[in-house]
């Protein structure tokens, strides 16, 4: 038996997998009720967020806490582009819409283009932030990015003519469905996956493991890190756009597009394993499912006729406790730094097969 699969078989398997998955999704869309469909789309969106953050936090080893800022930029940019003029006028009751946004050209745009522009806007911001802050190591970078996300939030809160201030945007067309979110997830995985596999990705991992050694090998640390930061920012913007059109109303509260969101994404990637793209997807899926299941602890529970009143905010408590416990006892997460590929699956099956033979 061969040790690895040939490239042809791998591509074939991937195509078959995607096709099967597509059939599964379409059957799910037809048969399940809208609640489940919404959660399935949400898993896709969360996965994009988690994968793009993994590129920075896991693969490049920089702790960025500004992800929510990029997501917010993507969300606001694309929402402003897809809303119709009437919706905007209904939404901006206090100040009215500023000039270029109330024209027909910048309204009611197709979803794909709006998302793309949202992603590009976030990428440009990522470049602008990355340029000064990539020179900083570890802790400082974390704080700068966190501060930057906070600046974005403050700007969104105060620039009422464009962002409608604290009222936020309402009546965003709910374009995001299963196809958009999982389609974009596929694009994300292909782009970031091949980026990680390329010489760039290897250089990034070298930088993560030892920046000084990598530098002495002639790797341009600054350029590589900035590139990964910008790519991550782009997909964060894309996910923000999808998220906004999933929520249909966004506002600059810390709980919607602020530090809590960054924290949630951190939970996902730690759950899945820091540094693994497939782990990020698994973590995002688990997080979305868990947070729906944990709604139980927020509602009233009746055990043997005793009613324990539900406390809102309990979910976050459970998650953060889980998070701390994971960081202390099980830092690797589900996947560690390994990737789920056809080859690793194949190896896993072969191992099981061999063990079976040994028993006989």
């Amino acid at each position, binding site marked *: 038996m061969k040790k690895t699969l040939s490239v042809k078989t791998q591509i074939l398997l991937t195509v078959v997998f995607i096709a099967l998955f597509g059939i599964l999704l379409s059957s799910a869309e037809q048969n399940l009720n809208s609640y489940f469909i919404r959660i399935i789309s949400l898993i896709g969106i969360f996965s994009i967020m988690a994968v793009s953050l993994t590129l920075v936090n896991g693969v490049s*080893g920089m*702790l960025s*806490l500004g992800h929510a800022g990029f997501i917010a930029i993507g969300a606001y940019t694309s929402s402003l582009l897809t809303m119709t003029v009437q919706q905007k006028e209904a939404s901006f009751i206090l100040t009215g819409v500023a000039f270029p946004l109330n024209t027909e050209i910048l309204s009611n745009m197709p979803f794909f283009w709006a998302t793309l522009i949202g992603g590009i806007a976030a990428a440009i911001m990522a470049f602008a932030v990355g340029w*000064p*802050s990539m*020179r*900083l190591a*570890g*802790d*400082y970078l*974390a*704080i*700068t990015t*966190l*501060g*930057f996300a*906070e*600046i974005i939030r*403050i*700007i969104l*809160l*105060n620039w009422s003519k464009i962002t409608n201030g604290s009222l936020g945007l309402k009546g965003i067309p709910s374009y995001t469905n299963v196809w958009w979110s999982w389609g974009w997830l596929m694009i994300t995985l292909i782009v970031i996956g091949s980026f990680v596999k390329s010489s760039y990705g290897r250089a990034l991992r070298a930088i993560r493991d030892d920046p*000084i*050694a990598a530098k*002495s090998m002639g790797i341009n640390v600054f350029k590589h890190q900035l590139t990964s930061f910008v790519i991550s920012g782009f997909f964060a913007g894309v996910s923000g756009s999808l998220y906004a059109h999933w929520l249909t109303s966004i506002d600059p509260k*810390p709980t919607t597009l602020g*530090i*809590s969101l960054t*924290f949630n994404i*951190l939970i996902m990637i*730690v759950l899945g394993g820091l540094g693994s793209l497939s782990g990020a997807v698994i973590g995002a899926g688990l997080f979305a499912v868990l947070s729906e299941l944990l709604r139980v602890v927020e509602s009233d529970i009746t055990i043997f006729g005793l009613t324990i009143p539900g*406390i*809102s*905010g*309990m979910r*976050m*408590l459970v998650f*953060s*406790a889980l*998070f*701390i416990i994971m*960081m*202390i*006892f099980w*830092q690797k997460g589900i996947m560690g730094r390994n990737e789920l590929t056809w080859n690793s699956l194949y190896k896993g099956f072969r191992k099981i097969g061999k063990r079976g033979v040994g028993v006989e």
Partner: protein
Amino acid sequence: MLYALIAVGYTMVYGILKLINFAHGEIFMMSIFFTFYAITVAGMPWWLGMITGIAGGALLGMLVDKIAYKPLRNAPRISALITAIGVSMFIQSLAIVLFGGIPESFRGVYPDFFDKIFTIGGEVVEKRGREIVINAVRIPSITLITFVVTLITFLILWFILYKTKVGMAMRAVSMDTKAVALMGISVDRIIGLTFALGSALAAIGGILWVGKYPQVWPVIGFMPGLKAFVAAVIGGIGSVSGAVIGGLILGLIEIIAVGVMPQMAGYRDAFAFIILILLLSIKPSGIMGKRELVKV
């Protein structure tokens, strides 16, 4: 001034552990709640309530260190950092669960002399039969109290750090942990004490903070915590005197910026971070910081 107080706590923990204690702002918040409930629910006199708050904050700081950071002493720094964020979120959601998410008013909790306003100079004018003072410099008494308390706190801190054995051990740990352990000093105990001291400073900061902005709710600690960190970085993180200077500079810049550009008042919170980013790109080690050499 308050930023300085909180920033010193930050910088002390960082100096020893090389860890940004994100939970610092949350300890700040929790000790305000402790004080609040000690005075309103337990019916303690105000000074005892404040002491309870400070003691509670210090205990919480030690607890956080014991539970969350101690197992990660030898782990990579980035995982300790991520855990710190987790701890911060945990305490925050714990506060939401325990105390609810609605802001509680702090008015009337402290005795009256916290709300008095002193006037300097000016002239007394008769108006509709009442005497009022105009053209005077008005100083709320809480500002004076803050000033005095902060000064006293710094004196005590200076005494602890430079005149006692524990303080000497703290300074030694921040220089070389291994050597200190070899000298027969329990490093964990010293780190725990540092957390207690730093958290107590955060608690004092919190208690003075609500004197000025009399409201408390579970997310109150986030912004002051972040800004205190900025102040610590401006001054050069790890250096106590630097943190004091950084805190003063940050406070002044915020006030001046809002004073000069009143229409930008909404962006007040953004100034701190803009300063931080500018400073870090010019002089990453801060004003009083030492440049660290890293050997391969």
